[in-house]
């Protein structure tokens, strides 16, 4: 019985390591599919989760930012009240 128990402990250890290795492997596969590598992870800025002005999701975060593109979209619309379209609030890519 003692030898059996020690072999059980050995099997448990091996399988626990195999499990963790599998989880790491799967996580790495998913991250690789997303185009995220170790090199890109080390060069990530820490504020990538918040709404940054230079994020590619959307630049429209406040009505004040509309003053620059508005003349291009509607050249005669600077004085007309009907063209004041309030922008929809944009969410970040995580939907928070």
């Amino acid at each position: 019985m003692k030898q059996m128990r020690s072999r059980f402990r050995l099997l448990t250890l091996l399988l626990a390591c195999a499990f963790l290795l599998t989880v790491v492997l799967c996580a790495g596969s998913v991250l690789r599919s997303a185009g995220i590598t170790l090199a890109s992870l080390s060069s990530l800025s820490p504020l990538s989760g918040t709404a940054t002005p230079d994020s590619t999701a959307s630049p429209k975060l406040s009505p004040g930012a509309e003053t620059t593109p508005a003349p291009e979209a509607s050249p005669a619309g600077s004085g007309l009240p009907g063209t004041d379209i309030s922008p929809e609030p944009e969410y970040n890519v995580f939907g928070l």
Partner: protein
Amino acid sequence: MNKQRVSARFRFTGAALLLSALMFLVPAVQSGDQRLYLLAVLVPCLMFLCGTLLARVFSLDRMLLMLSLWLCAVGIAALALSDPEAALAQPLRCGAGLAALLAGGILVRSLSPSLLTSVCSAFIGLLLLAGKLIAPSFAFPLEQAALAILLLSFSSLFARQGPVSAALMGAAALALLLVRGSIMEALLWGSVLLMLLFAADGRLMIVLPSLAVVLILVFAAFRLFPVPGAPAGSALPDALVSAGAFGADTLPEVLSLPNSESLLPRLAGHYGLVFTGLTVLLFLPLFLRGSSAAVYARTRFHAMLAMGASLLLVLRTLAALLSALSFLPLSGADLPLLTVSLPDLCAQLFLVGLLCGISGRNDADLAEDAHLAMLAG
């Protein structure tokens, strides 16, 4: 010390119930679906009732029970957002599975390694595997149930008759699985057999011939029966990435596979990769608890049964993860307890029930030893 254990257990149970309620409540508030509100009340209540009553009345291992209930709740949540009707049917399947868990927990306390146990369980297990060969129209998937019953026979034969008869019975089951074409189940069963033979006996004259038999059978099966590839596996990593770290509002089409019994893609699609990864990690404490029940079992029969059940669960988890991401060129493995297949869910909860029963028996033996020591002192 007992008060500390009770308060830790209370906190663990409370946290599990709160998380399970939030898992349904947040989507219910977002979508306004009445069925999700019903699930937000039903699932935590059932978890609480089953987790406390069953553990107390039948002396089952509480941690294993709560982990299994939590995984069942996650399976219901995976269906809830995209298919609320199916999500309402899943608790019924889980209920049937809990009946199988109870049956396993009660059975393991009353069973002993007798010739009757060995012969009856071997006969039932081999008959379930041969059913498809005898009646080809019988398409009910009973491989996992058969393996659970055959594990009883293997442990009983090994404890009573020795390794040779147990290995022969195991090889017969392996051959039947390969002839049926269930390559994944055959690989899992073969691996469990070899590990149990190594752990319980360890003699090279037993382990090496068994390894040779398993390799020859698997090689012959691969030659005679070509293995179909995993059709959806190659696209799954990209599909999982599309779900994002915290899930998508609408399930990507490639993740809502209509004929798939696995709930892993749906879970990743709705709740994201972080939650899915944490859920997968819960299988590790399940395995560790099961193997600790095996190590502390008093008899060889219970030790092998507990270790075999733990190995079946953990190897199935590994196979499911590897085949989902195309590391294994095989299909057909679902994560344990995260499936809509009723026979498979019942078989897996039966294995958990065996573990709960053996762990409960170990605690009872320890308490009896402490009582005897107190009387002697």
